[in-house]
């Protein structure tokens, strides 16, 4: 469904990604894990078109995305949730969700999708007329994901959805993501919470210093010594 082939990406003169290649197949939940500054967010920005690669190709459903502007990529069924959610704080919860369905094909079925999103996140239904700026951190993250779902994405990309959430909410968040995937949306999940991501992911890639350094199913990764020591705190912390 999604394929990255030897992507090199720069911020001005600074190279952030070095020959990144990976794939996400339809229906999968794939995790991309790695430490701070590894290039996880940059990878998502490349896929969603916010940043253009210097070389390499991104293909989605057989279509090359390199020259597509970011807003067109959303129409193709790819939606990225930004780090921290970035909900529109000055607008109501409902307005945020409506904006999620901005693309024509999503706008036509807006009301049905809205019902569906409210089923996944009942909290959002309760707060629909509240200004998004008044929501708690967890609620904002739900709203950000709900807003992305409103665009009816084939592939949903999440950037550290559990970041900053209370421990009890973290578990819930991973359950919800799992649920969204089970209902048919392919998910690419970027996380620092490696254990929880690997638990729900079909496969995972490990990224470090802008390079993919490991890949496998959850159990396989858990057995990697480097992953264990670096991310699961087995040897330090």
């Amino acid at each position, binding site marked *: 469904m999604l394929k990255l082939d030897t992507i090199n990406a720069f911020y001005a003169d600074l190279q952030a990604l070095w020959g990144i290649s990976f794939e996400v197949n339809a229906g999968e939940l794939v995790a991309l894990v790695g430490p701070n500054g590894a290039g996880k967010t940059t990878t998502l920005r490349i896929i*969603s078109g*916010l940043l253009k690669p210097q070389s390499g190709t991104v293909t989605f459903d057989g279509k090359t995305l390199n020259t597509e*502007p*970011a*807003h*067109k990529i*959303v*129409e193709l069924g790819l*939606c*990225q*949730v*930004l780090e921290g959610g*970035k*909900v*529109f*704080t*000055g*607008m109501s919860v409902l*307005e945020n969700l*409506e*904006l*999620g369905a*901005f*693309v024509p094909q*999503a*706008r036509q079925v807006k009301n049905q999708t809205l019902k569906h999103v409210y089923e996944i996140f009942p909290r959002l239904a309760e707060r629909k007329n509240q200004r998004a*700026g008044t929501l708690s951190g967890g609620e904002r993250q739900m709203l950000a994901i709900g*807003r*992305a779902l409103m*665009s009816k994405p084939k592939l949903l990309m999440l950037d550290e959805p559990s970041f900053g959430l209370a421990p009890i909410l973290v578990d819930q968040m991973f359950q919800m993501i799992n649920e969204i995937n089970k209902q048919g949306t392919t998910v690419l999940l970027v996380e620092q919470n490696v254990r929880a991501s690997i638990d729900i992911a079909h496969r995972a890639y490990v990224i470090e210093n802008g390079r993919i350094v490991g890949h496998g199913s959850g159990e396989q990764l858990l057995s990697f010594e480097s992953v264990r020591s670096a991310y699961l705190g087995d040897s330090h912390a």
Partner: protein
Amino acid sequence: MLEAFAQNLVYGVLIGALYGLAAVGLSLVFGVTKFLNVAHGEFLMVGGYASFWLFTLWQVDPFVSLPAAIVSLLVLGAVFYQALFSRMVKLTEGVKIQNTLLIGFGVSLILQNLALKLWTADTRSITTAYSGQVFNFLGIRFPLVRVASLLIALVLVIALQLFLRRTYTGKALRATVENWEAATLMGIDIHRVYLLSFVMGAALAGVAGALVGVGYSIEPGMGMSWTLKSLVVMVLGGLGSITGTFVGGIILGLTESATGFIALMAGGGLTYKEVVGLVLFLLVLVFRPEGLFGSKEG
């Protein structure tokens, strides 16, 4: 004395509505694009001359020709946007403000000189058959055209507000103001949003200019003063609040006329009137940088 003062305040509100209208345009553009268009006053001037021309050459009533003033400025705005401003979209906020400031100065010089060539430096005003009509209420005079202008300004501001609140496109504009990346990820083409807000801002300036032409007077060099006033009002009203900005315009009008009146009574000149806006601007910047009606929180 009291009556004269009240009369002055009424004049203040009437001109203030046009300050408000012009500032709403500038604020809309700045809020969405972070372009500080210092040629805003010249756009306003062009609107005034468009209306003046239609009236002088073809005797089109200035209120009837408002749509033409709007269309001219939509076109003019789009041309300048595509040719110059569109190149600034991708820059960071600080650089964007600096660069657009320079571009804006260039544009304002071009338009000023063009206006000088086309219409000379003479002060003009559109004098219709009903221009002198005034109605009295409680001994205070209300010039017909200025009252009509205030109502038009009010209607436009309310319409803009409804557009921003109720329509999908309006919401896309507000989303872009808050976070252009998040907006892009909703499938919003922010280049179109930028263009739209820019030409809408220009059109609002155009209407304000036409109304200035009929209620007051226009000249090629008027732009700078209107840009400054719009800037003062934009800060006064607080970014992001359309109604706040409009009310800010009326407050500036009132303050100017009150100061003008007091200065006159004290034997001073009318120049104080011009300074007071800038004083107000500084006071707001120091004590309430988010504006009188803006909110601190995002």
